[in-house]
């Protein structure tokens, strides 16, 4: 049955082998696409008539924001798999995603602030997206802190996973509430922020960057996940053979 096959794939040594094979491809492809996207975005795409060169930050801001949320979703799914199927590999993957996700969130926030300066005149504004992103950073920190504070690994895994699952349920609520609160305060900013119609010449580097980041992310999951699995199973036989 297919389920049995997936179960077998989910065992630590198999995951390790699979991840180690996949990783270099993802990392290099991701870097490659990101490099092309960056060049395209920084140099080739034309200047925005409203913002000039400053808008180019979008090429780093959007992918990292997008990735910060996908990473949390991935972390949540891995946590669910870990708890429901008691999979150590899933827990290891979830744990390794967290720092990267937090980093992406921080990058999104910082690039957002850098973008904000020319756009709104101030670095920070309590607009819906920045606020939600900041809260996302707190959610990541909570997860990482829980893992760091609880000494026994199995307990830390399950506790942090529970937190991640709660976070996933909460993310839409948090986002909705912040957006709602924001529409009452700063309708004007949102219409400025939205870039609904973006010209093709500006679009392709953006798409490339997003895809590049995603693929790189998969590579990071492979690397981080396999490192984590290795650490956890260090006493078992198959690790000694590696």
């Amino acid at each position, binding site marked *: 049955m297919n389920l049995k096959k997936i179960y077998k794939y989910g065992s630590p040594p198999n995951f390790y082998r699979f991840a180690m094979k996949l990783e270099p491809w993802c990392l290099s492809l991701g870097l490659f696409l990101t490099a092309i996207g960056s060049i395209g975005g920084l140099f080739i795409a034309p200047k925005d008539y409203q913002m000039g060169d400053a808008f180019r930050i979008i090429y780093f801001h959007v992918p990292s924001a997008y990735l910060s949320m996908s990473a949390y979703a991935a972390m949540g799914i891995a946590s669910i798999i870990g708890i429901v199927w008691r999979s150590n590999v899933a827990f290891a993957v979830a744990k390794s995603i967290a720092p990267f996700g937090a980093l992406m969130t921080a990058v999104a926030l910082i690039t957002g602030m850098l973008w904000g300066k020319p756009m709104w005149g101030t670095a920070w504004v309590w607009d819906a997206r920045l606020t939600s992103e900041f*809260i*996302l950073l*707190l*959610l990541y*920190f*909570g997860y990482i*802190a*829980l893992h760091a*504070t*609880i000494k026994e690994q*199995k*307990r830390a895994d*399950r*506790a942090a996973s*529970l*937190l991640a699952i*709660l*976070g996933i*349920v*909460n993310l839409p*609520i*948090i986002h*909705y*509430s*912040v957006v*709602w*609160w924001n529409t*009452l305060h700063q309708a004007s900013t949102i219409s400025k922020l939205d870039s609904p119609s973006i010209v093709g010449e500006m679009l392709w580097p953006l798409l490339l960057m997003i895809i590049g980041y995603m693929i790189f992310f998969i590579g990071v999951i492979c690397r981080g996940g396999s490192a984590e699995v290795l650490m956890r199973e260090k006493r078992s036989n198959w690790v000694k053979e590696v």
Partner: protein
Amino acid sequence: MNIYFQLFSREIRVAFKRWTDALTGFILFFLIAILFPLISDSNKEFLLTIVGPIMMFSAFFASMLSMQNMFKPDFQNGTIEQLMLSKGSFVSLILTKTIAYWLFTSLPLILISGLTASIYFVSASGILIIQLTLLLSTLTMVHINAFTAAITLGIRYPGALMTLIITPITLPILIFGSKTIENSILGADISGPLYFLTGMMMLSFFLGPWITASALKISMD
């Protein structure tokens, strides 16, 4: 006698013995609410603007103070394990415990909020809305606090970690709660945020005990 009623009366009895726990939160709530007008601009318009956020924030903070003691004493004396072995559903027992805890720690806040809100020049009807908002919000927050206390059980100095965990989850409640109060003072429609608060409260009653029970089981191993 019904198991849940037995547990409930025991919790109330014990809460009376541990009255200093509830007192800390109560005093903090009261103090924050009183100090603000004293140390800031005390003109009516300003105070009416900030009473919403202040009420919500002080309720939040007060509940955070006492939440460490929700499960810790029972963890130390082995009562939680006994509850797990009980013939009743563990989840429902946790719900019972949570409600008893709420009665003892949050209800006094709601009652005194009438007094503190009047310092901010809030009208009588406004006070009722504030109390209603606090009622809904604290009923929701108590479940979040229970979960946070449960999941950090056994950690030696969990204070900062608890704050980190609890803030993002509680934020929507704080936002909508303060908006409800603000709207009522301005005379605007409060049904929107109020419905949201009610929805959150009901959701937390369904999910809260279950997720707290799961957290307790994880912490107990």
